[in-house]
């Protein structure tokens, strides 16, 4: 009998081994996958944009001689005490609970040394971060864990969190393994429960209520503190416009690459928009209201380098925020812990089960044995170094574009490598004058 060649095994592009593994995991466990971090899928991002640099029609600034300023004012619209930062890279809100006390301290040390702000999270304000943060933004979240007027008054700004990029429309999650005695006490919860924070604020709904809530917070703090409103990247044009209408001093806009301590994977991967698509819509809302640069825009979600900072600012942001990148700078997912990552069934640079509280680096855990591994002084130094490098990189690009301040970067300095990025960012495809969708609405 003649032997014919067999059809080689062929994997489905729909039912990939990874998809099938998730189906099996769901079938065996009966619970959705929960993990930390932001989206892991490939998305149009800042990598799809390039700067043009100066040439005959523009002239550049001398790299090491001519000044390129980096400072930023935040909260100049209504606050008696607006914030002035040396660099436009801030540290995003991350809770004590999600992070260990020493990790929060390191964020404060590094940010303060680099001349920028840190932000509390869904667990209240700790002495570690207030003590080590020169400028501290206090988040006002639906859960209101630990909320009190004394901490409001000793904060430098207040950030009303409506949503975050990893899960627009979702609340927080902190599973039992991380509800230690201290975390439970701060949140006024029983120890060891699976804690789910509400997705809506308990005492206001909608933009008209938000305006009154902002009034109340201003009254409590005697109109001193800048009030930020943080939104997830869902409907950035309308959400930005409504935040401005409600009286925000600063809008914080977080794209779907932005991380979370713990959320359903399906939420992280399928809800929200990439930051590249969000920024131009938010900037347009501010411009349409005549409020661009009057209400400041901070953007976050996948900011990794000075190039990302420069691109976000060229698109119209006043500043950026980093969360995941800051944790990596502290030492998160470092290959030096590979042996321990392997024991957890994962590998360095892929570890995202922060909710389990077994982080080998000691950063995202409440286990004293683990968090004592982490040196907050060294961590702070590493974060400072990283923030300085990002700033130098952004300045390098800005000078090459002939700008003496990072805020002078503009969309005209950019081109796009892909049609998708051109359409989302509203900058022309490289080598053309084509911006897909322009004149066709947005």
């Amino acid at each position, binding site marked *: 009998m003649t032997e014919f060649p067999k059809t080689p095994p062929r994997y489905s592009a729909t039912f990939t081994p990874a998809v099938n593994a998730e189906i099996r995991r769901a079938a065996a466990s*009966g*619970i959705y996958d929960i993990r930390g971090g932001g989206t892991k899928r490939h998305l149009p991002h800042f990598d799809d944009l390039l700067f043009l640099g100066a040439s005959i029609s523009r002239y550049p600034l001398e790299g090491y001689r001519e000044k390129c300023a980096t400072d930023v004012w935040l909260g100049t619209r209504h606050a008696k005490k607006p914030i002035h930062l040396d660099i436009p890279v801030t540290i995003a809100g991350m809770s004590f609970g999600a992070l260990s006390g020493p990790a929060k301290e390191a964020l404060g040390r590094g940010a303060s040394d680099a001349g920028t702000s840190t932000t509390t999270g869904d667990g209240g304000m700790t002495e570690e971060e207030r003590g080590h943060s020169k400028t501290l933004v206090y988040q006002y979240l639906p*859960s*209101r864990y630990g*909320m*009190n*007027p004394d901490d*409001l008054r000793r904060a430098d700004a207040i950030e009303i969190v409506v949503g975050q990029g990893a899960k627009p429309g979702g609340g927080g999650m902190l599973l*039992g393994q991380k509800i230690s005695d201290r975390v439970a006490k701060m949140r*006024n*919860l*029983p120890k*060891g*429960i*699976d804690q789910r924070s*509400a997705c809506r604020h*308990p*005492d*206001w709904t909608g933009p008209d*209520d938000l305006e*009154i*809530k902002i*009034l*109340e917070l201003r*009254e*409590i*703090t*005697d*109109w001193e503190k800048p009030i930020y409103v943080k939104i997830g990247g869902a409907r950035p044009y309308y959400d930005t416009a409504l935040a401005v209408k409600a009286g925000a001093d600063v809008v914080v806009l977080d794209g779907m690459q932005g991380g979370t301590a713990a959320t359903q994977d399906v939420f992280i991967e399928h809800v929200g928009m990439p930051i590249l698509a969000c920024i131009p819509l938010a900037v347009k809302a501010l411009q349409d209201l005549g409020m661009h640069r009057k209400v400041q825009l901070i953007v976050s979600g996948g900011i990794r380098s000075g190039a990302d900072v420069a691109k976000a600012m060229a698109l119209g942001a006043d500043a950026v925020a980093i969360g995941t990148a800051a944790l990596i700078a502290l030492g998160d997912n470092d290959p030096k812990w590979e042996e321990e990552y392997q024991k957890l069934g994962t590998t360095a640079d892929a570890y995202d089960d922060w909710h389990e509280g077994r982080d080998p680096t000691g950063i995202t855990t409440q286990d004293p044995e683990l968090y004592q591994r982490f040196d907050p002084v060294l961590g702070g130094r590493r974060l400072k170094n990283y923030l300085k490098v990002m700033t130098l990189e952004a300045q390098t690009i800005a000078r090459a574009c002939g700008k003496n301040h990072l805020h002078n970067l503009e969309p005209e300095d950019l081109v796009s490598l892909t049609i998708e990025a051109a359409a989302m960012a509203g900058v022309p495809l490289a080598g053309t004058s084509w911006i897909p969708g322009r004149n066709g609405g947005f």
Partner: protein
Amino acid sequence: MQSFDLGKEGLRALNSSLHALRGQTNMTAWEVINPKGAHAIAAGVDAPVDITVRGSTGYYCAGMNKQATIRIKGSAGPGVAENMMSGAVIIDGDASQYAGATGRGGLLVIKGNASSRCGISMKGIDIVVHGNIGHMSCFMAQSGNVVVLGNAGESLGDSLYEARIFVRGTVKSLGADCIEKEMRDEHFALVEDLLRRGEADTKAKPEEFRRYGSARKLYNFNIDNAAAY
């Protein structure tokens, strides 16, 4: 008595005068006239003073109060005494939604009815309502006590943590994970104390109340409870 005409002098002047009292004790009696439903009246006070508001208030009256006793001689808008830390807020009339939301301490007394979401997400406050409370009251309530002389609306105590709810009248329905629990001696004593402090001891007796609390079945996720969420 310091009398403050809100209509003439404005909210900012009122609150900054009240905030300036921190540490002082000689001006302890205040009266606010012409409140006309303004928002954030006496928000953020931190002094052992008595403030009487002669009329009805808008949103967030007495928000985040510490130490002060604030009497509202009218009805209160949404979020009255939200996140109160200590002190007392006593309302002669009704309270709108989210009364005492996230409150961490002190006593809130509502002599009329409270609307929906009374005591939502509360974290240690005590609330005494002489009348009824609306739907979704004590949603995700974490700790503290609520005493209701009248009836409770739908979904009382949904997703409750460790707060205790005492209702004298009917409960239209209980929310997820909220169950009726036995009244033990310590609960009778607690209700007696709250009725007295809530100026309701002539209206009701502790033995007339039933207790509701968390079944604690949703504290840790179990797929077989998914329909309860």
